[in-house]
């Protein structure tokens, strides 16, 4: 059973989804914000999942992410929300 503290552990690098370049892929390490975490988990952003920055809205925010190795589905979220998803 994973310890709940791993969800919000302090990571070694502070790189988050917000810092991805367009088209770049990375793997989720942990979710920083406990309240946001549950919603993100339910939407499939589980630590260990691969995400790719797919597009930005015309004014830079929100962004869309493609979740999963097989390009399973696309999520849209705000930059501030993306910043709570930390990367490996």
């Amino acid at each position, binding site marked *: 059973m994973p310890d709940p503290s791993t969800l919000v552990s302090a990571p070694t690098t502070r790189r988050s989804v917000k810092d991805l370049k367009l088209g770049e892929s990375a793997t989720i390490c942990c979710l920083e914000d406990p309240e946001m975490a549950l919603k993100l*988990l339910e939407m499939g952003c589980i630590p260990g999942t691969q995400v790719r920055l*797919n597009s930005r*809205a015309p004014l830079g925010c929100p962004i869309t992410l493609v979740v999963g190795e097989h390009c399973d589905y696309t999520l849209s*979220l*705000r930059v501030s929300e993306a910043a709570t998803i930390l990367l490996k």
Partner: protein
Amino acid sequence: MTSGEDMITDPAGVAGSAERLQVAAGRAGGLLARIALVGNPNSGKSSLFNQLTGLNQKVGNFPGVTVDRKTGISQLTPQLRAEIIDLPGTYSLYPKSLDEKVITSLFYDHTSPQYPDFVVVTVDASNLRRNLLLFTQLADLGLPAILALNMMDTAEQHGIQIDIEALQQELGVPVVPLNARKGVGIAALKILMSQTLGPPTVGFYEPEEDLVPMVRQIRYYFNLHNDYLALHYAHQYRHLTFLSPDDRAYLEELTTQYDFKPTVRQAQETIARYARVNEILLNCVTVTRTEQNEPYSNRLDKVLTHRVWGYAIFFGVLFLMFQAVFAWASYPMELIDQGVAWINGLIQTNFSGPLINLLTEGVLAGLGGVLIFIPQIALLFAFIAVLEETGYMARVTFMMDRIMRRFGLNGKSIVPLISGVACAVPAIMSARTIENRKDRLITIFVTPLMSCSARIPVYTVLIGLVVPDEAVLGIFNLRGFALMGLYLLGFFAAIFSAWAMKLLMRTNERSYFIMEFPVYRWPRWKNVGITILEKVKTFVFQAGKVILAISIILWVLATYGPPGRLEQVETQARATAATQRLSPDETEARVASERLENSYAGIFGHVLEPAIRPLGFDWKIGISLITSFAAREVFVGTMSTIYSVGQDANELTVQQKLAAEKDIYGQPFFTPARSFSLLVFYVFAMQCMSTLAATYRETKGWKWPMLQLVYMTGLAYVSSWIVYSLMS
């Protein structure tokens, strides 16, 4: 059965199983099974619902809340029918929005008459991992379930192969592969649904060891049939309205005593469930071909959410929508208008008497005012349904979020605002998807400023009166532009009001945006058709009733007056007419108009006149404003009734009647200044009891509806006054 004591003397488990037996016995006797349809958003749940029930649908409310409760009857076998409840889409049983709270509370109370016999869980086969999360939660609650494996075609395209037999083994419930859009697999599903199902045989998650003492205590206190349900009591007792205050206090005490942290525990559970789902999928699913080329949806998004093309296309779509509602709908509308006028004329030439007058001037005139809306409402909802169906609405939300946030709204506010163009009542309800309270309140508050379809007839009649029917660029119409102008006026008023409220309201709650981007699809025309039919039906039977009733009341008010007064006025008018040597027709017109002015309706209008004179309105418009408060669309019906009483030519359409109206100098009464003043008044004024009622229910208090009423009506008064003063 709300208190703990009751539960112990009559254990819920026993009651539940006894009930199930009854249902099983009842089904043989022709009673309906109750089946709930659950699933993630975009898992094809509404397609499946439409396939199962066809046109046998009705929309009601869940008891106590205003969440739409869509039910339908499905003929499973020639002998057996079932009632299907279509629940709002959700990702998990831990609710984040009002819609989701309804779903979860439905599954907790065994004794509720709403409790389903079993659930059909729709999952997107191309995205099994995330979709199965909800299924495992439902299964752990002990609900008998069928898994509807939808969108098998998409899964195949993605190279995903699912071993149905193995999945069925692993999940412990029947699994049916489906393509709900095309109707593939529906027959097999119906056969399965007609069987009596037992509870699922496989569990997916056990509460963590350290939770067990607390969970067991809850379980025995409430006599629940499993640990997971008891855990949900601990998580959600605040929303469980079927529990007594004592029971909730007990749960509060217990959770505090055990230092229970819901958010952390829910996250922990979700991770544990994903781990379990991953194991299952490893045994049942193989992905043969990893498609590396960009999905077509994302390629389409490059254009449709482009910084220039994206907005250009969006405004193009809106413009097309208004052209359709104004220009294209006018042909069937004219037919309806003339049809009603023709029937009216036919009856009047062949019969006479006070009852015939009531029928033609009251009932038929009012009915005409209802029926004439149908083409516009149908077209509008056709557009909105297509935008939702194709997945384009999500893109609009995405493009607008940044802009809307600046004005204190949220990208998701665009759906209520656009739906507000159809009707503020469902629009206000659709604001429920906005999780943030402040964003939601602001959205609800400003939505009625969007021009709803009930304003269309007012706009149509008055624009037709003062804006010339000229073509622009060949195919477009100047009146179409004028109409769009009025819609934009309402939209900007909404946006700026929201901005002002953002500055006035304080909150520390954060606003969320995260949502799934649905894949672009062709609209399912059957779904679009059902939506149109449903909305038109609702309009005709809900709004129509009010309009018809008011038309009749109005006819009475306009025909009768204080005892003796009308007779006296009539004698006087005839005497004056005789001394002026008027023709018989002119005499009749004079008499009718004098009678109306002295009727009850005329008296009301006169009382109101001093207040609205600065806006350019007279007592006849005053009457219409009063009756409009029930529903705006009544305006046209009222005008039609008032002016039919004043004139003998009933074959005239409403617009011709208004155009023929003269002021005291013999000039046309509806000058541009008056018409635009009236138009602006209708853009802003809060003249809809149903909207106020909706706001009351959604905000749970009178504060917001009252503020809405005062603010909007004040805005309307001031703006109309400015317009009239500037133009005349």
